[in-house]
């Protein structure tokens, strides 16, 4: 069902907007990042193309439409481990759109999950052991001082 919705979504919206004979954007890539996907494509070799429109879909439904002038876009605020599809269409100075590219999909993922866990654990144990080490050092200093003072007092008393 999701695939059918995706196909309907992918075909319906960009096709309806496509006008003129602007070139089709090629080689669209979607690279997963943490809560984001980096969409990139080969820049059109046509002087009429002044920018691109990027369509993002989730479960076949259009999620966002973004106009850019570069040949890459980082789509953020996405949910990790959910699949997103992207299409790109070339745009001319009048706002006319070319045919949509073939879809590229990716699921954002947190490749630094383990790193965050390790950081949290290191912070936790370093703080606790660091504090305990400070107390141990203070204890040793106080013990030494106390011994000195007791010895000094004893000397005073024997005098």
């Amino acid at each position, binding site marked *: 069902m999701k695939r059918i919705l995706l196909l309907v979504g992918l075909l319906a919206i960009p096709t309806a907007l496509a006008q003129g004979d602007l070139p089709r954007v090629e080689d669209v890539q979607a690279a997963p990042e943490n809560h984001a996907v980096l969409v990139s494509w080969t820049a059109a070799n046509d002087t009429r193309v002044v920018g691109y429109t990027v369509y993002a879909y989730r479960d076949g439904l259009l999620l966002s439409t973004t106009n850019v002038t570069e040949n890459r876009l980082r789509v953020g605020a996405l949910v990790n481990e959910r699949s997103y599809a992207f299409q790109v269409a070339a745009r001319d100075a009048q706002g006319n759109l070319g045919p949509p590219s073939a879809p590229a999909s990716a699921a954002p993922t947190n490749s630094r999950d383990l790193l965050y866990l390790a950081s949290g654990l290191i*912070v*936790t144990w370093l703080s606790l052991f660091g504090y305990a080490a400070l107390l141990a050092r203070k204890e040793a200093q106080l013990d030494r001082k106390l011994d000195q*003072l007791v010895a000094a*007092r004893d000397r005073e008393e024997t005098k």
Partner: protein
Amino acid sequence: MTSGRSIDRTLLVASTLGGVILLWLALVESPSLAGRENVTSPLAWKLFFFHVPAALASFIAFGVALISAVLYLRTRSTTWDHSTHAAAEVGVLLSGLTLATGLIWGKSEWNDAWDWTNAKLVMTLVLFLVFVAYLALRQNIPEPEKRARISSLYAIAGFAAVPLTWFAHRIWNTFPHPQPLEPQTTEQGITTPGIMPIFGFGVLVFILLFAALYRWRLQLLEAEARVEALSVATEVPA
């Protein structure tokens, strides 16, 4: 300084051993939340096993500081002043740990370490700063009796930040801060079988840890006072 040391050593060893077991339980034995709808960082999620117990232990620490401060004002015994100081200091450490682990988890899960609309997060910072200020206040009042009286009053007033932090998500209801100890909260995976006992064990370990560090710090403060008194008596600089 030797009396009670064996109890303190036992507490310290028990809490350290408990910490190692908790680490093993959290990393190896806890069920994986990978693939859960609302858990996008299943590994960083394991920080909750330290974050929540540290928060609860910090509340207990500030509670001990409150009781000790009240008892100081009633009895004027310096031991209670030292107790307030020790509990507040360990509470600041635990509260700082709560903040640090929470920020790291937030960065991983939400891609955002800090959010001013998260009332619980903001109140935890306020609580932390209130007791950091308590420690700073003590440093800046040289006269022991005045220091003990004023800082006790401050600790009593500062404790108000504890219930405000605990109930922050209900009072301000601005941000869906995960509530792992509220059974109706399912979206962060807390109801997954096998998670709650590890949480319970974590809380026990952090309470033990608080007790061990608090008693150790208290003994050092008492020893410092003895050194000071002896220094005056023998005219040797402390």
